[in-house]
């Protein structure tokens, strides 16, 4: 190799600039912005959560909130915090994280910022399943089960229809958009056939809401995250390689179809379990990964940051939904949809240039 470098020494310097963390045989190379953004997001999420628990019709001062959270509060504070407000906030954090993570997985797989589960039919499938349970007089558990099943069945169909020697991202998006339209019309048909009370319940559920959510809503999402988050972190490195193209990833020794199947499974389950808990809340899965990418200045989609941004987005939106025209309560889905519209317009405006 005889080529002279134009600036000798510039290369190793540039390579070394991003510090490595090495302990014995272990070594990592974290992006500097991610190191700051991650903890900062955790703090913001915590602050929003405390604010949401503290305020409302009956204000619990912040020190009392913290005391109650650690089991040291007054009985009244413990009732309001532990029974009424904390479950709602925790459900919001977990559902937001699940939507954010699911969105990040699908945007990476489809290599498309619009390839999120609320666009490619998976959330719509969950809605249809949920509404079917509502109009047939299902219990809360049956509604949750219905939406989970709807999500999984839709995903299987979309995946099957998009499959041709492996799944190409754009095929998944195109087939998914078709499924989305179809399923939405099925949902509305079901609403027209339902009796007025069921239709009202279903309509409210369709918006997506965290109102009246208890620990029984939070637990399934927490379990799903506990199982699926490690899987997501494990596939995140090969997924970043797949973003460069299937051939590029395969030539690096990655089993592209296996990684993709694992990521799709995790993404579908996360989307399903989140919809089962809070209804089809739009926009979080779409925007969280893009906001996370800008915050961490990371190339490609980042999974952990997307989950954190999702958690912040949903709890913050819920706080706004509860306080905006208090004592009137808005469903959180109304707020996220409103922010989502503005966000989409900005995204399209930016892409024009």
């Amino acid at each position, binding site marked *: 190799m005889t080529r002279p470098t134009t600036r000798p020494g510039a*290369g190793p310097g540039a390579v070394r600039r991003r510090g490595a963390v090495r302990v014995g045989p272990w070594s990592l190379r974290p992006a500097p912005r991610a190191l700051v953004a991650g903890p900062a997001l955790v703090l913001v999420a915590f602050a929003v959560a405390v604010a949401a628990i503290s305020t409302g019709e009956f204000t619990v001062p912040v020190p009392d909130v913290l005391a109650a959270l650690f089991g040291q509060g007054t009985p009244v504070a413990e009732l309001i915090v532990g029974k009424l407000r904390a479950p709602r906030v925790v459900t919001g954090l977990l559902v937001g994280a699940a939507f954010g993570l699911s969105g990040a997985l699908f945007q990476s797989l489809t290599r498309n910022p619009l390839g999120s589960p609320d666009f490619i039919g998976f959330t719509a499938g969950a809605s249809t399943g949920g509404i079917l349970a509502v109009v047939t007089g299902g219990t809360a558990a049956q509604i949750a089960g219905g939406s989970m099943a709807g999500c999984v069945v839709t995903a299987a169909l979309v995946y099957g229809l998009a499959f041709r020697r492996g799944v190409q991202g754009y095929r998944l998006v195109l087939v998914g958009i078709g499924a989305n339209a179809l399923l939405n019309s099925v949902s509305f048909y079901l609403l027209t056939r339902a009796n007025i009370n069921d239709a009202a319940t279903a309509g409210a559920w369709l918006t997506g809401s965290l109102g009246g959510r208890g620990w029984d809503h939070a637990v399934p999402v927490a379990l799903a995250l506990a199982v699926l988050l490690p899987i997501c972190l494990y596939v995140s490195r090969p997924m970043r390689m797949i973003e460069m193209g299937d051939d590029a990833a395969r030539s690096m020794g990655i089993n592209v179809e296996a990684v993709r199947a694992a990521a799709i499974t995790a993404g579908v389950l996360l989307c399903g379990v989140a919809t089962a808990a809070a209804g089809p809340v739009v926009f979080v899965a779409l925007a969280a990964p893009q906001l996370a*990418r800008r915050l961490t200045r990371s190339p490609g989609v980042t999974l952990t940051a997307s989950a954190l941004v999702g958690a912040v987005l949903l709890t913050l939106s819920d706080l706004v939904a509860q306080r905006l025209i208090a004592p009137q309560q808005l469903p959180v889905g109304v707020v996220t949809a409103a922010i989502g519209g503005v966000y989409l317009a900005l995204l399209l405006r930016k892409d024009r240039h």
Partner: protein
Amino acid sequence: MSRPDPRGSRLSGSGLTLAYDQRVVAEDLDVVIPDESFTVIIGPNACGKSTLLRALARMLKPKKGAVHLDGSVITSLPSKEVARRLGLLPQSSIVPDGITVTDLVARGRYPHQRLMRQWSRADEAAVAEAMRATDVAGLGDRIVDELSGGQRQRVWLAMALAQETPILLLDEPTTFLDISHQIEVLDLCADLHEAGRTMVAVLHDLNQACRYATHLVVMRHGRIVAEGEPSAVVTPELVEHVFELRCEIIPDPQTGTPLIVPEARRRVSADA
């Protein structure tokens, strides 16, 4: 029928039938990539040259026959192990949004890394060396999307180099580049070959192939019609047979390798 001995060279294919779904592109191909050669596969459009390269790089599973790497059937080897011996520069790859040159080149280290060993000193050294060899060291902090086509192709090559494989396959590395950048990339490939790597490339331009290849594989209609050193295999008859082009062959004034001069249909008279 005699098959090439898979143990004779590190990379070879025997009895290969290559197909996309049911569409057979090439049948019963035997090919041996000589060690430490700069092998160039050439032929008209749709002759199966890229398909052959993809099969050698285990991107495409042969319908029949097998590709051998170091005496083993390539698909029987662990995928990451293959990736440490054989690299591929695909025809087109997608640049991740907002990635810097250093970060993209560093991705070439993937086959050498594990979940808890993501950035060893060997990784760092290999990336620095790859960037030096491809002359992109000064671009380290630049965003890849903002580079020129020629610079970008050098960055992709740097990524493949960082993989530190003794064999490197390149699928039409000069497509989409203007002539000066084509020569720049091919000169770089020649340097890498001189440094001891086995290089295999699919090229479009017959003259460039003759100039840079030490071993030429000429294909037509999914079959290999000639193999060997360019000066030995490239004749007017071969070019007419393979490319349906009547031509004259003269020595390249710069290198002495065969230079194909297509026959003119209308001669411009000198005293007109």
